[in-house]
């Protein structure tokens, strides 16, 4: 019924190469298009027109890419050269590695992994270290402050994020994303776990450092936070990582709560991407609607509101599952 890339190509190395190529190509194009979408959307929300070069302003992104690619890669004199260069890679690499786990269609998947959720939660934590090394390696006080904030924020919001995923695992008794999608045959889990979805979206917004949780890169306080000292494509890599993390979080929410590829009439992949991009538009809408939180408000919200709420949700789910 389902075919993964290894069965398709009958050669694990070829399958690996094709998977990485497809994911890298998709994530690059996706990041470029999402930046365009974000600029157009923010323009609409603020009653502006937004970029206008080419049809729908699409050429603007091509020019921006050319600019980023041709810029000189500056390294600050007193920066720690090795950490400074490694950090952007460390921030971007986890998303690329994890994107192969998502079942986009019911027939062709990259790979169905029986502990996919544990793997996702484990490896997505690595980019915190990348952000910290970026801030520390730059030898810049704004960068370091941004990194400190980012680590604190990521640790705090990772807990409600994990706690909001656990009820789904308890209901389906599986950690494979493919099987979780299959389990949502009659109804998507958003109907039984609406609170978990809300907690997940809020935590994911915080994990991706986006407004109203963009304290690590608050431009009015910290220049650009942890990537203040980065230029050219190294800065571009942080940008790619942010938009790739967004699509990653939205894809995870789609699989866990919205039924993944499931939907009437249209082909599987179309439904999957409709749901993912709807969530992305929602996250962009947040960014241009809500003001930035203060740091103490941010921490308090995570520990006083989200963690207890997700624990209560977990408890109720346990009781209901025990009774039913």
């Amino acid at each position, binding site marked *: 019924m389902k075919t993964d890339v290894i069965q398709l190509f009958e050669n694990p190395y070829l399958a690996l190469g094709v998977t990485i190529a497809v994911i890298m190509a998709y994530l690059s194009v996706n990041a470029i298009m999402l930046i365009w979408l974000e600029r157009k959307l923010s323009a609409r929300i603020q009653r502006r027109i937004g970029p206008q070069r080419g049809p729908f302003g699409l050429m603007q992104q091509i020019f921006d890419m050319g600019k980023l690619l041709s810029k000189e890669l500056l390294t600050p004199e007193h920066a720690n050269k090795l950490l400074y260069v490694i950090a952007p890679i460390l921030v971007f690499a986890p998303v690329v590695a994890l994107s192969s786990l998502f079942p986009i269609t019911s027939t062709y998947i990259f790979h169905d992994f*029986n502990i996919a959720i544990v793997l996702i*939660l*484990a490896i997505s*934590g*690595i980019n915190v*270290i990348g952000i910290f090394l970026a801030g*520390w390696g730059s030898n810049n006080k704004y960068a370091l402050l941004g990194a400190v904030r980012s*680590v604190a924020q*990521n*640790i705090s919001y990772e807990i409600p994020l994990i706690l909001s995923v656990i009820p789904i695992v308890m209901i389906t008794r599986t950690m494979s994303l493919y099987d979780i999608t299959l389990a949502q045959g009659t109804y998507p889990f958003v109907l039984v776990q609406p609170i978990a979805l809300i907690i997940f979206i809020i935590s994911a917004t915080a994990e991706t450092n986006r407004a109203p949780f963009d304290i690590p890169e608050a431009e009015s306080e910290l220049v650009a936070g942890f990537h203040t000292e980065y230029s050219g494509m190294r800065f571009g890599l942080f940008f790619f990582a942010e938009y790739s993390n967004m699509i990653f979080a939205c894809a995870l929410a789609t699989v866990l709560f919205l039924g993944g590829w499931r939907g009437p009439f249209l082909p599987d992949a179309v439904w999957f991407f409709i749901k993912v991009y709807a969530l992305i538009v929602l996250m962009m809408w947040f960014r241009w609607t809500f003001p930035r939180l203060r740091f103490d408000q941010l921490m308090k919200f995570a520990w006083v509101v989200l963690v207890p709420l997700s624990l209560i949700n977990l408890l109720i789910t346990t009781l209901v599952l025990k009774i039913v």
Partner: protein
Amino acid sequence: MLEQAVIYTFVALVLIGGFMAAFSRQILYAIIGLGISLLGLAGLFLNLGSPFVAAMQVLIYIGGITVAIVFAMMLSIAMSIRPPDPDTRKLGFAIACAVIFFGAVAHLIRGAQFQEIASPASEKAWSVGALGHALLTHYNVVFETLSLVLLLAIIGAILIARKAST
């Protein structure tokens, strides 16, 4: 051949990371070394055929412990001060302890009668379900004792921190 190379790469990661963690004068490098070492360990678990344990290793030790150490370090002055020069007496004591511990472990390993057990018939034997079942039935007492020890460590850390601040 390729498998051997992969195993030795992971072993090298563990050793290099360990050396970095133990001998670097800069505390951040020590933490990075610890992270590299733990990553190598996760790779070894993966190689032994248990992706779940490898993923947990990454989740808890790299995503949790290493990040927590980084976090604690950021809030202290440890990052900006120069570490004191090594004390030869302490160094000698540490080396002696390390040699004795290494000797004891090496002796135990050399004396142990390892039996080659057949690799588990199916992936089921190593599955998450089997592990969870074993932890909550057969190894229940060990499991609970470990969590109690962790709780004690947390309470102890809080007590020490409070005493230092007052």
